[in-house]
């Protein structure tokens, strides 16, 4: 009886140990397969396609990558989260459906699809139905500007290669706060309302430092276009020396950490998960949701996680450039690495209280980001010969 609980040496550093990394790479390979395949096809065909159609092709390839992310990321990110959680907690996690539970999320998705479509009687039907849609739209619309590679002829592989990409990112993520607020208000439930209010306050507050930190990058690189930001980080010592995170040490390192913290807060992840704090608000803004509508919030959360991780990788960690040249896989490695860090934090740290969360933002994160921006702007200004 007792022997069935083998006394395993606890690995609180679980996600950093071998098994989850192997698993993460497996996931990564699956998700990145489609974009990489598309890239290869695009490389092979670029000589045969007339120049007028070239743009169309890059967009199509971008869409292919985008669909790969859209379709597979949430499913495998959820699986990955459960695995990371399990290994942090000295257990196995899903093991039954598929190899090491790889198909577990499909099974869960099917279950959620077949659930009854419930709208509470006293809820606002329009807001209640619209909120999950807006959540998922805002999460995935932002992926439109996430480029994941550049072809050998210089064409950017993205759905839309906006020259104001980072602005678009800042703008579109604000929609997420709206969706949470709509869900909280539309549910006509006090807990949901608390969740919605907390979410609105939190997201609005943390958008400010996010924008400042984006400005920090823009001030150094001198462009709002993400491919150009990445291009500016190419080269250097071992191919990583020019990554922004290593520039002006330690200013950009601090900037990166702050950006990551803001990303955690914007995606409502522990220790900033107060809008859905399950021990306080039951489930927060999605208390009344069930079935596929609930799943949409879930998908949006995982989409947002990957989005902020990829953005952080693109802006500070050199995106797809690295020691082995330029490769879309690198971006996915970096992005998913940060996603795993997010998960690791979630299963290790307790949750902050509302006022402490706000204090972190307004007393520490915003002033430090402002300071960073000032210093960087000053240095750049002096360098430009003021």
């Amino acid at each position: 009886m007792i022997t069935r609980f083998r006394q395993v040496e606890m690995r609180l550093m679980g996600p950093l140990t071998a098994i989850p990394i192997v698993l993460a790479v497996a996931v990564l390979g699956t998700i990145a397969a489609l974009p990489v395949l598309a890239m290869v096809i695009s490389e092979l065909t670029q000589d045969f396609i007339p120049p007028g159609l070239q743009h169309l092709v890059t967009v199509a390839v971008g869409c292919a990558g985008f669909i790969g992310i859209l379709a597979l990321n949430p499913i495998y990110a959820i699986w990955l989260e459960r695995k990371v959680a399990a290994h942090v907690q000295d257990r196995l996690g899903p093991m039954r459906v598929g190899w090491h539970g790889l198909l577990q999320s499909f099974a869960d998705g099917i279950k959620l699809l077949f659930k009854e479509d419930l709208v509470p009687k006293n809820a606002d039907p329009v807001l209640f139905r619209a909120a999950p849609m807006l959540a998922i739209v805002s999460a995935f619309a932002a992926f439109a500007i996430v480029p994941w590679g550049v072809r050998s002829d210089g064409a950017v592989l993205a759905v839309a290669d906006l020259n104001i990409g980072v602005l678009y990112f800042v703008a579109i993520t604000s929609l997420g706060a709206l969706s949470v607020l709509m869900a909280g208000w539309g549910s006509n439930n006090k807990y949901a309302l608390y969740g919605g209010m907390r979410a609105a306050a939190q997201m609005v507050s943390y958008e400010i430092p996010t924008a400042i930190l984006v400005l920090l990058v823009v001030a150094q690189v001198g462009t709002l276009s993400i491919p150009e930001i990445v291009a500016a980080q190419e080269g250097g010592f071992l191919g990583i020396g020019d990554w922004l995170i290593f520039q002006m040490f330690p200013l950009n390192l601090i900037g990166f950490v702050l950006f990551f913290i803001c990303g955690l807060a914007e995606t409502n992840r522990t220790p900033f998960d107060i809008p859905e704090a399950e021990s306080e608000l039951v489930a927060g803004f999605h208390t009344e949701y069930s079935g596929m509508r609930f799943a949409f919030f879930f998908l949006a959360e995982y989409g947002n996680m990957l989005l902020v991780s990829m953005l952080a990788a693109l802006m500070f960690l050199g995106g797809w450039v690295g020691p082995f040249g330029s490769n879309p896989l690198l971006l996915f490695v970096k992005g998913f690495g940060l996603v795993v860090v997010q998960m690791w934090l979630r299963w290790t740290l307790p949750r902050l209280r509302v006022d402490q969360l706000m204090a972190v933002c307004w007393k520490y994160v915003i002033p430090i980001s402002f300071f960073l921006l000032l210093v960087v702007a000053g240095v750049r200004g002096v360098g430009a010969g003021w």
Partner: protein
Amino acid sequence: MDRKAATGQDGGPLVTLYDEQLPPDNSYAFSPEELEEDEMILNMGPQHPSTHGVLRVELKTDGEIVKDARPHIGYLHRNFEKHAENIDYQGVIPFTDRMDYVGSMGNSLTYAMTVEKLLGIGVGERVAGIRVITAELQRIASHLLAMGTYGMDIGAFTPFLLCFQQRERVLDLFEWLSGARLLYNYNWVGGVSHDLPDGWTDRCTRFLDEFVPVLDEVDSLLSHNRIFIRRTADVGVIPPPMAVDYALSGPNLRGSGHDWDLRRDDPYLGYEGYDFDVITGTGEHGPIGSCWDRYFVRVREMYESVKIVRQALARLPAEGDVHENVPRFVRPKGGEAYLRTEAPRGELGFYIVAEPKKPIPYRVKGRSPCFVAMGLFHEITRGEMIADIIAIIGSLDIVLGEIDR
């Protein structure tokens, strides 16, 4: 809301049984008419993930600030005291098990000892040793539950599972010993139901050896985490005089800095012969008597319990009949007895009034430490935030089975 909507006329199972008319709705302590602008009544529970059972807390809130809080109890009320009027002395023990259902050994121990006091009988050394071992293991299990769920209340999920893994091993030991995993019916009047099986002590020692490093690790993971300290160290402060005024006991009292432990100060079962420390709150992070102090007292107490179990195992007499003093008939000469022990959650007491030569007790009253602790809930929640309410409930370590009885 009307009755049909409330119960879900379309298929709710209770609909046909209920009155069409609602029971008079006087279960609210605050009336909506008296609310000021911006105030709201929030019902937390009875079905809430972190009220530790079916506790309902009525909060008068202004945004995130809780202006006032009133606990409503009784959702688990079974009135075992009424049942006990019709059951013989020995038969009450399973009912006492169900009071504090995560600390059953302590309950039945206290009850059995109270009846023994009525009868004027004692127990042999081996029985006393076994009782100490089971009581302390139960304390470890109970404190592990408290520690784990407290982490979860604050938002850290991992310590919960790590604690439960260890608690499971204690339950395995108990299962081997008594056949049950939660409600043991183990302590009998004058003895215990089963002697220790062969090899039980070895496995118990092995558990203790392996448990301590794990506890160290969970402790380092949770107790001194900066976020955890910020969430708990300034919250739910019970000043020492208030703790006495409300007759708190156990870790809640010691968390407020009172150096008082029945096991040392009013020893029973030979506790005076064991070497252990009484842990008190120190106010290490903020004012003394905070949630963190109460939590940390429990963590440290587990180490002390390990010490006690080790000593008890070492000095346990090899031979001895555990049924030696079990009376054939429990028929006290009359009179009354009150006895309390240091249960995991505080001082659990039983007050038994006996009729002369009757096999059933005239009156059994359980003095529940959780009931008493819950009595000061409204005092320490005023002006805190909603998240703190959860922290406070968790730090008092209540079990609703014992509050409602």
